[in-house]
């Protein structure tokens, strides 16, 4: 019986891990590649969850479809935020202290606005795959984890292809390393960064939909994800999407096993432990350069 429990904990952890990767993907781009410490990312994710919730509860459209439809909206939001950030901080090289405070304020304002509009009730969405599970022998695959997991994988593959195959994608990878060289290639680094930041926020739309499929959401839930997101991002080696995926799977499994065997209230401590350990032992992460 103990063995079945362990197997299922690992499966749930792996499924959850892929979801964590989707949540972290955006930060891997903004923090890892663009060097923009967007701690407001969880705020955008929760925003995505609530948009999925509103459309789902009033029109009954599938949350994942909603999140895909909302991609352009989030992309524009991202470019707008980057524009403000660039004009006010990055242009003068003042990004460290004030930039952090700016994003922190943004996170806080998003949370309080959602709180004022929706209150502190837990919100959830309706879809056919929330509830049933797929059984394979002793193994159980809850569909509400499996579906976001598969879509996450697709999203991750698309991101990786975009970054490694297209010109703009390669320019994004290049901009963090040598903006001057990029300028010599007649590419405007600011434009590239704006596009990349837009994409990073766009992923938050989908991650938000996954989140509200997996668990009911309240405005303050985003905070729980900050430690997790940055732990994964640092562990994966900043700016490496495959590294992010591996780190996310690792964290997912460890967290899941912790919560099955020691109780769910201990799970948040795991990510922080891993974060501190990584920072102390190997700050460049698993696949860091």
């Amino acid at each position, binding site marked *: 019986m103990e063995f079945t429990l362990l197997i299922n904990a690992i499966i749930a952890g792996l499924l959850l891990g892929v979801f964590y990767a989707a949540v972290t993907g955006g930060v891997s781009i903004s923090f890892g590649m663009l060097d923009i410490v967007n701690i407001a990312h969880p705020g955008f994710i929760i925003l995505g969850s609530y948009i999925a919730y509103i459309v789902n509860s009033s029109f009954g459209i599938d949350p994942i479809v909603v999140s895909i439809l909302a991609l352009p909206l989030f992309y524009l939001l991202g470019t707008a935020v980057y524009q403000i950030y660039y004009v006010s901080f990055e242009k003068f090289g003042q990004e460290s*202290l*004030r930039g*952090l405070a700016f994003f922190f304020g943004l996170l806080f304002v998003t949370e309080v606005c959602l709180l004022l509009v929706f209150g502190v009730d837990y919100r959830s969405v309706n879809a056919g795959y929330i509830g049933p599970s797929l059984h394979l022998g002793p193994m159980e695959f809850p569909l509400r984890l499996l579906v976001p997991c598969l879509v996450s994988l697709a999203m991750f593959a698309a991101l990786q292809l975009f970054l490694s195959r297209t010109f703009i994608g390669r320019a994004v990878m290049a901009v963090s390393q040598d903006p001057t060289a990029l300028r010599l290639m007649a590419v405007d680094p600011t434009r590239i960064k704006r596009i990349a930041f837009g994409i990073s926020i766009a992923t938050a739309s989908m991650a938000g939909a996954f989140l509200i499929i997996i668990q009911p959401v309240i405005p303050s839930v985003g905070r729980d994800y900050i430690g997790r997101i940055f732990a994964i991002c*640092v562990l994966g080696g900043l700016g490496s999407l495959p590294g992010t995926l591996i780190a996310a799977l690792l964290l997912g499994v460890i967290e899941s096993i912790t919560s099955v065997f020691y109780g769910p*209230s*201990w799970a*948040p401590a795991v990510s922080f432990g891993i*974060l501190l350990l990584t*920072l102390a032992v190997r*700050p460049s992460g698993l696949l860091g350069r």
Partner: protein
Amino acid sequence: MRTPVFIFWEVVVGAALFLLFRNYGNDYLFFAGYTVLQFIVLGTAWNILGGYCGYVNFGTAGFFALGAYSSVFFYNIGQNLDDIMPEKLLAPMQWIFPLPVPVLIVIAGAVAGLIGLGTGYLTLRLRGVFFAIATLALAVVLQTLVVNWDFVGGSRGAYVIPPEKIPVFGPYIQYLFMLMLILVVVSLTVARLIERSRLGYGFATIRDDEMAAEASGVPTLRLKLIATVVSGALMGMAGATFPFYIGYVEPDSAFNLSYAVNSIAMPMIGGTTTWAGPLIGAILLGTLQQVATVTISSAVNLLIVGLLLIGFVIVAPSGIVGLWQKWVRKGPKP
């Protein structure tokens, strides 16, 4: 102004405030004033690391709660002495417990300072961003620990019942107000001393160009650790009296994110380079919030703080003090 003179004026202003409240105000004024004073301490403490060194600490709530829960811990020991202490120790322990609040404040400072030292030692060698993220996560983890620790109340919370009256001061809140006033004097003095000492210049070199500072022989890691410990300890001390103030502590209120936001917003709005910045920011924002909580709602006042923070960071990066200095330098138009 020399330091003893500065302290003298602080004490004079503090005493005047206290007497004014005592003679012309009511208990509500003490309750509201306590909150503002608490934010002055938190803002000043944050600024020692954030403003002077340029290292952002998002974990104010964590350090604050650490102080609050260390008080709860020792209070609970005092309440359950018969069960906890072995027979032999009971008599001397009964003599020691319950610990007076000033002692609890010192203990809380030590605990929070130690945690600051630990976190700092692990993360301060890296870029400042990592420290910021670690402090953010630290608050979450401390909260997890407290939620799972039944002795200090767990997720249910703990009651700390202060006596209603106390000799000399009368109502207990006046005593707490006085303690917080002393903490304000201490933290402002510390901040001002740092600002004008070798230490402060060292901090400023870290803020402006850490690489250059390190290259010219400034012991950056040691200085950053000092700043983290001092700042964390002051935050913990501000939290130590919180259980006695509120009477009932639960993790959500002690770890409230509003402490983190306020302690960043206040120095940012006031100005981060001098001790006066957090003071001005805390008085303005603290009073504004007290008014907004009563007249509108507590969620709205948090929104105001967040928006003010974003606005000031973008439009007036050096805060009110910076605006003032600019105005003085230019001079009023004839």
